[in-house]
């Protein structure tokens, strides 16, 4: 059993991306299914995935959503918002005032629906935080920036944010670790999917080699692409293999210790948990005790991302992931 004062479990509906995109559920049905399977009560929702009215949710929709929350007994912990700066491909990013307003629109919608925090992104330039944090304070909602691959505790962007967090010194700002930044290996299920799509073993061997090299993700992706084109691999196979650079990095799992104090929420990223309750790529037994022992009492939402390359049952994966986390946290 999870210690009631320690980390709490939950799920992000992002785990059910395949079921959502194939229209197997509308939002009420998906939330009822999550509740029926006891995968909550804590949930995260990506505003731009599940709410058609995002970024400007109407009062009517917010009221319907709150009714659904009351009916299902779910707890709307986190609403993921986006820092969409590059609205015109190949052109300059939008101006700062527009980006600030874009964040405020999403913060207002999240608050209106009853979420207690938002996930935001490093695409927001750090110098704009002083313009946004007071607004979050005013309306009463916390903001956690997602430390997602290729970011990790030692990344310069994270350090710049940490300096700004010190300067602003407000309880509304924090971190949301995403464990994909400290993967120990590329998940075998991802490699199998690339094999099934026709990628040659030589391309996957090179991927595994380049993935472990130092450097920025896009540089490594460029390196693989250059090698692969020169060696006759098909562009679509290269694109498929390159996914690993953008969603997984191989930084030290213990590095999360530096961020525990300001962690307000966690993305329990995973790719495949077997019947043995072990995740393929991310070393949970090393990572979770850092947060438990560091006093983290927020929510770990199960975030299955295998849907980026396969279609196994997401509900079963989330059940196994939560069982794994509970076992480790109790240990």
């Amino acid at each position, binding site marked *: 059993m999870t210690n009631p004062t320690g980390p709490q479990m939950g799920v992000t509906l*992002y785990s059910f*991306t*395949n079921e*959502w*995109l*194939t*229209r197997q559920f509308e939002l009420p049905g998906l939330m009822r299914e999550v509740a029926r399977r006891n995968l909550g009560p804590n949930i995260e929702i*990506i505003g*731009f*995935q599940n709410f*058609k009215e*995002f*970024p400007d949710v109407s009062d009517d929709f917010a009221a319907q959503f709150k009714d659904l929350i009351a009916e299902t007994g779910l707890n709307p912990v986190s609403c993921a918002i*986006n*820092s*969409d*700066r*590059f*609205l*015109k*491909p190949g052109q300059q*990013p*939008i101006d700062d005032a527009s980006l600030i307003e874009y964040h405020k629109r999403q913060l207002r919608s999240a608050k209106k629906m009853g979420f207690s925090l938002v996930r935001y*992104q490093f*695409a927001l330039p750090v110098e704009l935080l002083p313009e946004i944090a007071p607004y979050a304070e005013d309306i009463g909602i916390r903001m956690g920036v997602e430390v997602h691959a290729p970011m990790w505790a030692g990344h310069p962007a994270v350090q710049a944010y940490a300096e700004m967090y010190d300067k602003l010194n407000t309880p509304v700002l924090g971190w949301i670790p995403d464990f994909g930044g400290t993967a120990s290996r590329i998940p075998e299920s991802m490699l199998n999917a690339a094999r099934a799509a026709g990628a040659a073993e030589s391309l996957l061997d090179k991927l595994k080699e380049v993935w472990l090299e130092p450097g920025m993700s*896009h540089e490594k992706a460029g390196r693989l692409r250059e090698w692969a084109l020169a060696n006759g691999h098909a*562009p*679509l196979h290269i*694109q498929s293999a390159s996914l690993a650079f*953008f969603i997984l990095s191989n930084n030290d799992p213990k590095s999360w210790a530096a961020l525990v104090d300001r962690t307000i929420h966690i993305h329990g990223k995973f790719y495949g948990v077997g019947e043995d309750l072990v995740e393929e790529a991310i070393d949970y037994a090393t990572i979770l005790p850092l947060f438990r022992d560091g006093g983290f009492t927020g929510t770990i939402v199960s975030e299955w991302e295998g*849907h*980026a*390359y*396969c*279609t196994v049952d997401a509900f079963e994966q989330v059940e196994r992931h939560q069982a794994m986390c509970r076992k480790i946290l109790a240990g």
Partner: protein
Amino acid sequence: MLPVERVIGEEGLTATPAGARLAMRLPWYRSLPFSTVEVGGLSIDGAVVDLSGALVEYDGNRWPLAQLGEQTNAFWFVRDSAFLVLPDVSVTAGSQHDVALTVNVNPPYIPGMKRTNPQVATLTVN
């Protein structure tokens, strides 16, 4: 094909008085502004379709495809189809056609990332 890679919508190809109408799905996990989406190309029965007069219909709105890049505040809900209207293409209800559609997405929070998503399907015209 993964759900996230699908670009030809469930509603398929329809004959209308205003030309052919093809359902498109957004090949991404979340809604995106239409300005970040490009129709990379369309062939019907192996012939490249000239898209210079094409329109995009979504949720009561209609834009020339050539002006899609201006739609920075119109969001394509990821669960919905948008429709490519082809005034110069005539199809007959009940006929079958091989349709090859490519949709590119440029996620607006990942500078420089472009994903190309081709799909080929044999469709019976509605």
